[in-house]
């Protein structure tokens, strides 16, 4: 037989209010006004004639009012019909409490999280245990469930353990946890075995089907925390891609609306920890993902930025951190191999003006220029890149210093010119050249006009950070740049040598190769107007600014890792010797052992800074990484009851009080009857 139960049984005390209509009736009788009346005989005649009808009406009214109060109280108490319970075998009972601690249990409609509700129901379950009942405690976890307590007749210790459990930011599947709980029930040997599951029963929470040990599957009692038809709306940032451009950042956020309703004009903000913010609006169709792009100015301090949505009932997935780049200006050392008294004939005249037209603050590039004969090893300290512009010769000691500089992460660009002898330079610089130089060639005339002297770069730019894709805001038109002379290279230079840009005839214009942690670049023509007309063109400035960022390692670095909570992160190769410190989102610093590059404590959501022990940015590791909840956890759509039954296999399912699903709510029926009763009462009163 179906059992009636209530979600808020404490409200049933309100049934005492059923006496109120009777009391009001009696009080009215006692407080009736005395009225002398001469025509009492007529009244008595009327009363006698209508006595039965009036009495009946009075009784019906009283009953209706009492029933109205009872129905209102019952409806407020959340009545529901529990399907008939199956026959239980006699004997002691063993119970495993299984709590879902996955990220989606942070969902807090009405300000109270599902996990808190689950814990409260679990406490009630412990309090209401049968004498001698054996209790165990298991939580979901990724990748494995956690056993907090095996099955034992000690409710108090389980209660204490329950208070220590916290909801995680990671995933967790019910299947393995159920299997583990069933395994714990086996030694108990109790004739009645059950697992009480406290979960949001979101579709993603099930995981693989449990395999029940033993012959008889335990009974599953599901304390569902939200009605199946409840709106489980949620928005989430599903990923952020950030790419530094010359003066801006390109930030692309993927945002998903998991609810069943479209949302329009949702404010989306990009904020930076250092300073600055931009905002926009996004329309989010129901259960769809959209991309929203921003192009905020690069924050001067660099650091961490966040894409932030307005908080909803699951607020922890409403923002995601990303790396906005290093702060401060890029520092370069320019070696002028062809210094001239006439300033506009100087080798670096155009390059210097291109790198910092507004000073270092404007472009983010700072540089110092020295002639080769005054170059010292100390000059390499504190710079991220060196440009050898038309430098004919360098002492071997300096070449060795430059080699060390590159291997430790610096960038070296060799730009050729008429001061360089190809063979001698190849001999002196050796592996600092991406490829050995062979000869100077003329690229000839292609037309009669002044702009048609020389050869253009190839029309199809390579996929390289230096060369933004066509159509993008940063794309440069290099097809009209004319170059008259270039230095061809010998084949070779290692398999990792890469041609970034070449002329129309196929002669490489820009080559690169990685050495150690640094990179080498070879520019096969001049950086002044001796061999090329490019300095006179507008595209010269952005290209060479971008070149400097690339040289300094600010462009083209892989994006910092994006890790799901609970998953380990590999920061770099184990061969590196730099000692690292990871600063968690809660501010706690976790030093890693020398050579340790694997970090596992990723339980917290947010940005994890990675620093060297002395506080500087690591050369061999990303500046940090972001930890996000598992993507599936943001989708709160509930599992269908039919699918759940099939998934549970042989285990009989039963819905627990406190849950709503599987039960037939009577609240609506109560309100319906209440409305009918009120209408009937009004009709009776109007009828008189």
């Amino acid at each position, binding site marked *: 037989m179906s059992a009636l139960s209530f979600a808020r049984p404490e409200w049933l005390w309100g049934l005492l209010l059923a006496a109120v209509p009777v009391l009001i009736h009696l009080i*009215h*009788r006692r407080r*009736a*006004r*005395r*009225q*002398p*009346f*001469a*025509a*009492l*005989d*007529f*009244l*008595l*005649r*009327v*009363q006698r*004639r*209508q006595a039965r009808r*009036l009495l009946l*009406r009075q009784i019906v009214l009283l009953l209706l009012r009492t029933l109205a109060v009872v129905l209102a109280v019952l409806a407020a108490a959340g009545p529901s019909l529990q399907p008939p319970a199956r026959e239980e075998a006699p004997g002691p009972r063993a119970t495993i409490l299984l709590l879902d601690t996955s990220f989606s249990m942070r969902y807090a409609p009405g300000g109270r999280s599902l996990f808190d509700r689950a814990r409260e129901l679990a406490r009630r379950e412990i309090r209401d245990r049968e004498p001698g009942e054996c209790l165990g405690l298991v939580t979901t976890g990724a990748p494995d469930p956690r056993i907090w307590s095996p099955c034992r007749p000690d409710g108090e210790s389980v209660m204490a353990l329950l208070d220590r459990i916290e909801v995680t930011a990671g995933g967790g599947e019910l299947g393995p946890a159920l299997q583990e709980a069933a395994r714990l029930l086996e030694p108990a040997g109790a004739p009645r075995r059950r697992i009480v599951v406290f979960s949001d029963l979101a579709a993603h929470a099930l995981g693989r089907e449990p395999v029940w040990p033993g012959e008889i599957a335990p009974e599953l009692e599901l304390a569902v925390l939200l009605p199946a038809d409840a709106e489980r709306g949620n928005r989430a940032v599903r990923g952020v891609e950030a790419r530094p451009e010359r003066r801006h950042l390109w930030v692309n956020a993927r945002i998903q609306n998991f609810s069943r309703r479209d949302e329009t004009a949702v404010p989306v903000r990009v904020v930076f920890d250092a300073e600055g913010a931009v905002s926009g609006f996004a329309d989010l169709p129901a259960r769809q993902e959209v991309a929203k792009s921003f192009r905020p100015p690069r924050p001067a301090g660099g650091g961490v930025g966040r894409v932030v949505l307005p908080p909803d009932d699951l607020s922890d997935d409403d923002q995601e951190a990303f790396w906005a780049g290093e702060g401060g200006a890029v520092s370069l050392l320019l070696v002028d191999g062809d210094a001239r008294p006439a300033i506009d004939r100087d080798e670096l005249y155009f390059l210097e003006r291109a790198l910092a037209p507004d000073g270092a603050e404007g472009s983010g590039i700072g540089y110092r220029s020295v002639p080769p004969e005054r170059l010292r090893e100390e000059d390499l300290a504190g710079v991220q890149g060196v440009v050898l512009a038309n430098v004919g010769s360098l002492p071997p000691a300096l070449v060795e210093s430059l080699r060390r500089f590159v291997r430790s992460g610096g960038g070296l660009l060799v730009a050729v010119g008429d001061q360089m002898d190809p063979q001698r330079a190849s001999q002196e610089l050796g592996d600092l050249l991406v490829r050995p130089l062979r000869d100077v060639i003329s690229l000839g005339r292609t037309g009669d006009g002044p702009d048609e002297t020389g050869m253009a770069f190839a029309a199809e730019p390579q996929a390289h950070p230096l060369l933004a894709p066509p159509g993008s805001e940063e794309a440069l038109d290099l097809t009209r740049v004319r170059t008259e002379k270039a230095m061809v290279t010998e084949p070779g230079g290692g398999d990792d040598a890469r041609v970034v840009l070449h002329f129309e005839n196929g002669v490489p214009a820009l080559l690169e190769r990685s050495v150690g942690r640094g990179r080498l670049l070879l520019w096969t023509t001049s950086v002044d107007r001796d061999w090329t007309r490019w300095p006179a063109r507008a595209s010269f400035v952005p290209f060479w600014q971008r070149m400097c960022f690339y040289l300094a390692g600010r462009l083209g670095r892989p994006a910092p890792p994006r890790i799901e909570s609970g998953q380990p992160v590999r920061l770099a190769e184990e061969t590196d010797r730099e000692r690292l410190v990871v600063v968690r989102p809660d501010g706690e610093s976790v030093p890693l052992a020398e050579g340790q590059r694997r970090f596992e404590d990723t339980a917290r959501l947010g940005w994890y800074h990675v620093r060297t022990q002395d506080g500087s940015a690591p050369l061999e590791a990303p500046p940090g990484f972001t930890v996000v909840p598992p993507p599936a956890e943001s989708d709160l759509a509930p599992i269908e009851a039919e699918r759940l039954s099939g998934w549970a296999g042989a285990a009989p399912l039963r819905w627990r009080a406190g849950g709503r699903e599987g039960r037939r709510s009577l609240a609506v029926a109560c309100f319906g009857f209440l409305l009918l009763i009120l209408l009937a009462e009004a009709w009776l009163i109007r009828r*008189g």
Partner: protein
Amino acid sequence: MTEISSLDPEVLARLAGLQVRVERVVEGVLAGIHRSARHGVSTDFVDHKAYAPGDDPRRLDWKVLARLDRAMVRRFRDETRLSALLALDASGSMGYRGGALAKLDYAKILAGSLAALLLRQGDEVGLLFSGESAVERPPTGSGEHLLELCRALDGLTAAGPTRLADLVERYLSRMNRRGVLILFSDLFDSDREALQSLRLAAARGHRVRVFLVLDGDEIDFPFEDPTLFTCLEQDRRLLTHPRQVAAAYREEIQAFIEECRRTLAEAGAWLELARCDEPPDRVLRRALTAWQETAK
């Protein structure tokens, strides 16, 4: 906006002394009604009227017939003095006061005013009370009699059961010749003998005029909240919700009024409903006009 007349019951209730109230009412009545001659068998010739079948042939004016060849009947001022006895029901139920005046107070004003009007035209007026006040004033026509009547009316209080049959019997025993019985009562007679007695008096040739004095509450029944109604004459009570019985009660009281009117009309008597919230001069004017109509 409702205009309040100087003869509204609220205004009259503020006037001290029955005589003052009576004078006001009489002034009001006289201001609104013209003196009209009563035509009877006195020697004072008034005028002629054309002869109609049923007219007494003895009253034919032969001289006119001879001279003008038209049959005309002579009409004379009635030389018979009217002997009227004003009977007031002073039972407990007449003490009900819903508005400014109790029913008995209202009846007193009506009776006093009518007495004054009758005395002014030379009729004889007496008083007869029911209830515990057994005061009687035989009909006389002297001018000073009004003062005495007012004094007697003033001292009347409502108490005891309704015994209208006794009242009519006393009237019949005192009036040897045919007279006028003018009754002021709510006719709340539980045994319904009052109407039978009045029919009897009418059958004996007396003119019977009844003022059915009822309070507005008794007709409209404006009560709403649960009320314990108590009887004014006996120890009876009824707790009821007025809203539930109001409609049926109103039907009941209207049926009662109609029954009284019909029963008395069948006996040749006449009934005028006097609501205590209506100016008494209006009631009296209506009554006098009706009497004149019936006298023609």
